[in-house]
């Protein structure tokens, strides 16, 4: 204690000087806008550099989470946009106050198991009936076709991938609307075959193939792929090779599309049969 006092006494000049200088500088910075702005700017730049670096580093660790968040955000937005609502045309005088009804509902799910090298390929998702997923729903990824939900347990579901010999998808050529049926030939995970396109249809290599929307599973306009080869088969139909736009090898997150009007449509169609 005594030596501390001695020290203070010995250094009082310097200490007092430092004290008063600090006081003057704090007065300076607090009372002059220019100096204040200058100091704040400097400290912001200095600290900003460090923060940017540490934030950059941190980002890497949260990429998975961020991805998931974005996928969910995407689905929320897809649920909002107009194309998921069907428009009710009004034939009668009566005024209906809802012009738009929601027709498709999107849910995101993660693929936890996937195969591409079998003849009957399935995917397993981490969501099931408890999360609102039911059989006959469509699975897409980023607007590209993935498959159809087949079996559902309470927390998991299986999806028949497009790469399955049993799955046939009603599809059409985007530019002129000729529709046919798409199936996988069991060989290459990047291509499938589109049949039943009549010979008089005007098609070229590179044309876009999308879903037709006839099947009550897929909404209209989900991307399937591009024409890569055209072959004339005996009879009056083309056999078209389609390069799939989905990369089944790198799938991670999918969106499940539920058609809210599916039962209504199927029941109506059953009456006719």
């Amino acid at each position, binding site marked *: 204690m005594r030596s501390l006092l001695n020290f203070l006494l010995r250094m009082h000049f310097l200490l007092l*000087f430092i004290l008063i200088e600090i006081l*003057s500088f704090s007065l300076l910075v607090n009372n*002059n806008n220019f100096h204040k702005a200058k100091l704040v700017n400097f400290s912001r730049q200095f600290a900003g550099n460090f923060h940017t670096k540490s934030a950059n580093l941190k980002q890497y660790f949260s990429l998975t989470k961020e991805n998931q968040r974005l996928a969910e955000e995407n689905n929320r937005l897809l649920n909002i946009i107009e194309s998921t609502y069907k428009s009710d045309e009004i034939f009668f005088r009566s005024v209906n106050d809802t012009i738009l009804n929601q027709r498709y509902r999107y849910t995101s799910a993660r693929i936890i198991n996937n195969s591409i090298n079998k003849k009957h390929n399935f995917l397993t998702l981490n969501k099931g009936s408890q999360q609102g997923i039911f059989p006959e729903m469509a699975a897409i990824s980023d607007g590209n076709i993935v498959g159809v939900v087949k079996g559902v347990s309470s927390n998991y579901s299986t999806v028949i991938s497009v790469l399955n010999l049993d799955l046939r998808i009603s599809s059409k050529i985007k530019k002129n609307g000729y529709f046919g049926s798409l199936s996988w030939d069991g060989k290459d995970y990047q291509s499938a075959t589109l049949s039943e396109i009549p010979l008089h249809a005007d098609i070229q290599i590179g044309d876009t193939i999308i879903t037709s929307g006839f099947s009550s599973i897929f909404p209209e306009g989900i991307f399937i792929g591009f024409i890569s080869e055209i072959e004339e088969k005996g009879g009056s139909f083309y056999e078209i090779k389609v390069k799939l736009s989905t990369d089944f090898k790198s799938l991670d997150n999918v969106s499940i599309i539920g058609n809210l009007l599916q039962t209504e449509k199927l029941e109506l169609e059953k009456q006719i049969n």
Partner: protein
Amino acid sequence: MIKLFPRYLISFTFLVFLQVFILNNIQLSGYINPYIYVLFILALPFETPNWALLILAFILGLTVDLFSSTIGMHCSATVFMAFIRPYVLKVISPRDGYESETLPRLKYYGASWFIKYSAILIFAHHFVLFYVEVFRLSNFFTTFTRVVLSSIFTIILVLISQYFYGKEIRR
């Protein structure tokens, strides 16, 4: 010591008024701002205790600041100047030290001593003042030119004042 007090009070008031109302309005070619008020610190007696030196410098700087609405700018410069004053006095002291009953004035210790003394302190003061004012180190030499030119001008004014002072005291 006590009998010196009224005289320093008057010189304090006079210098601050001179600085604030006349010299602050003079800006020769945008470079030269003389700050004569530092003469107050230069003229304080040798025996002034160090802590009193700092506090007086702070009050002086704050007063000038208040009048020129640059709170803190002159303070920091004058306090720095007061801080180095004892060391400067020690370094340039004449061979037989400072006599009692004398003040740091030109007529006691001669022109060369006084010019050395005032030049070092005024330069230090102006250096701190101008760099605190611009608050950046870019354009270092532009600021430095201002420091040097203003210092020269202030030194000249201080030297002139010495002859006034001298006569006043003799009277």
